[in-house]
């Protein structure tokens, strides 16, 4: 229905509601933390929490641009495959082409950005829906990773390369700094800049954004490229952490990432969402997995919990949103 009735019970306004949603989520997280912490004394230790940060960095790095994308009403299912492709090209260019490792890292980031750029250009120029474009490249990029590598691993990177993945910097896992910086930058960009405002405008009303002179296509192209680039970065961090390049790296990441973003209150319909929500979403999933594992729940049961939480939280979020819009 195009004509939504006019001003009604207009008590609810976005910031209040957003705050509320994230507060709620954070509150649930807090309760879960305390509960799980009570059940296992090793859960709420700084060591464990930092370590969980290390383990979730790869997913986290991708979830940030994914938040941007979902806010515009898009989606990127190909991120996991881009991780695989970049990991392979990192190892391949280093070992087979003989690139110096720093160059190989640059190359793999470039490939990630190019893969994202291809998604973006087809989505904006040919107007292929993001869901289907990235399903296609989900298969394509993984296929390239498998085809190029013939599923062979690359190992034996120089020791310095493992710093990011395995060492600590100022007592905090090195890659966590990367994630923290990325979080702060993304949050500021989304909340404070014209770029971020444009993302919300596109998600809420793409035509109006276009008619307001906002560079809609360029912004979309940037976020899909960014998504590819971050997937490339995530691949480098992952390879550094596990010391090996394999073509099956990143399989299923897209689902983890989307689950975290959606759990964090970003609407899959676009227009609504924050980086802080995503951060809480990531923390929630990782700590839920970890906490449940530590209290003796097996991995398979944890997956069930995550799936249920995802559906329920979307249900709650969408009914809240509907009420807010008064439909």
């Amino acid at each position: 229905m195009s004509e939504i009735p006019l001003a009604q019970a207009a008590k609810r306004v976005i910031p209040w509601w957003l705050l509320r949603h994230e507060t709620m989520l954070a509150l649930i997280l807090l309760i879960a933390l305390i509960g799980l912490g009570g059940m296992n004394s090793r859960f709420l230790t700084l060591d464990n929490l930092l370590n969980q940060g290390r383990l979730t960095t790869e997913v986290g790095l991708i979830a940030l641009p994914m938040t941007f994308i979902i806010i515009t009403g898009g989606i990127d299912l190909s991120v996991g495959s881009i991780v695989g492709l970049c990991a392979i090209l990192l190892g391949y260019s280093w070992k087979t082409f003989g690139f110096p490792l720093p160059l190989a890292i640059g190359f793999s980031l470039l490939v990630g950005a190019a893969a994202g750029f291809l998604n973006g250009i087809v989505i904006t120029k040919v107007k292929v829906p993001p869901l289907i474009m990235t399903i296609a490249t989900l298969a394509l990029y993984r296929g390239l990773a498998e085809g190029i590598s013939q599923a062979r691993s690359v190992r034996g990177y120089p020791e310095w390369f493992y710093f990011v993945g395995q060492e600590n910097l100022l007592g905090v896992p090195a890659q966590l700094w990367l994630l923290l910086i990325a979080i702060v930058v993304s949050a500021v960009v989304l909340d404070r800049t014209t770029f971020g405002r444009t993302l919300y405008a596109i998600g809420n009303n793409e035509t109006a954004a276009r008619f307001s002179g906002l560079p809609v296509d360029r912004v979309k192209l940037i976020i899909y490229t960014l998504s590819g680039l971050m997937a490339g970065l995530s691949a480098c961090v992952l390879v550094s952490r596990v010391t090996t390049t394999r073509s099956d790296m990143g399989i299923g990441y897209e689902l983890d990432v989307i689950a975290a973003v959606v759990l964090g209150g970003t609407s899959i319909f676009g227009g609504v969402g924050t980086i802080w929500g995503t951060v809480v979403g990531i923390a929630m999933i990782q700590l839920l997995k970890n906490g449940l594992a530590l209290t003796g729940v097996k991995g398979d049961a944890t997956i069930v919990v995550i799936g249920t939480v995802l559906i329920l939280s979307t249900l709650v979020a969408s009914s809240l949103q509907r009420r807010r819009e008064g439909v």
Partner: protein
Amino acid sequence: MKLGLAAAFLGATLLAGTASAADKRWDGADDLPVNPLACSAGEANAAPAAKLYDGGKPTNAPDKAGKPITLVDVPKLIGIGYFNATSKGMQDAAKALGNVTVKTDGPTEAKIDEQIKFIDNYITSGVDGILFAANDPVAIAPVLKKALSKGIHVVGYDANSTPDAREWFVNQAEFNGIAKAMIDSMAKEAGEDKGFAIVTSTFTTPNQARWIAEMWAYAQKCHPKLKWLETVEAQEDNNLSFNQATTLINKHGDKLAGLFGMTSVATPASAEAVTKAKLCGKIAVVGLATPNAMKPYVNADCVKSVVLWNPVDLGYAATYVMRAVVDGSLKPGATSVEAGKLGKLNVVNGSEILLGSPFVFTKQNIKDFDF
């Protein structure tokens, strides 16, 4: 759409150009040398030079000698018959020992980064020992070293890590031993000068890749007339394995006299493909597999012999080894370890404990096993 098909054809043609490369992949994917055994059992093998202990050591492990310990077992993946069997062996051992608790938990797909997360979680939760079967020998090393550094004992089984990342590795059977058993069976069942093909998981799965490399070396050395037609990959996927085996049968026709299944998934699927093609007796199926999945084919005389160590024993042995390590009865430099009903197991290769020779299931004995 026309464009799409044109592109697909073009793509297929291009790929065909790169095709021949796929045939030369029998180097084990790990740059290690092969070591084929002697052709006949009577011939003496050159005894390998005694190797010094090259495993790792936990730092400040609490002394739990004789005390109850809690272990966790993180296999490559959960939900396949093989690792269900090793898990059963561990429970058996735990019951026999009385002072061991062991729990199996792991990823639902054989993904190394998932496996690392599981191990990491268990390090935090504070177990006394970790049993593992590695998805990737190198990638798993850092997290295992972390476990050692936290005073947790680490013992591998089935699939090794780099030696310094664990204390001991329980080797089900040496690669060259498996290779010899497989190739000898094939030469016997299919014929010395016949062609065969292999269905494996992937060209780079550590164990499978090594076995194939050793099989290649051993066949060159002892059965040079066997014709190695092709190796195809089918991951750990039942239906893909079946389809790949069927395709091989159709592709090579009479030239194909034997199929190797390199995984417990690929072997029954290959046997099924042969059965469906009504070629039982014409195409020999030899492979690594668990008995339950193979019973129909062995009982129908479509498959004569299934090569495997007993995975229940493997899990059992791994648990005993862990107990011995914690108790201090297995120290670097030891030459053997006591493993309950399995008796004394030998230390080989510095820090590996050998379960024994591969076990061959036949129609006569297969009904005695249930896993």
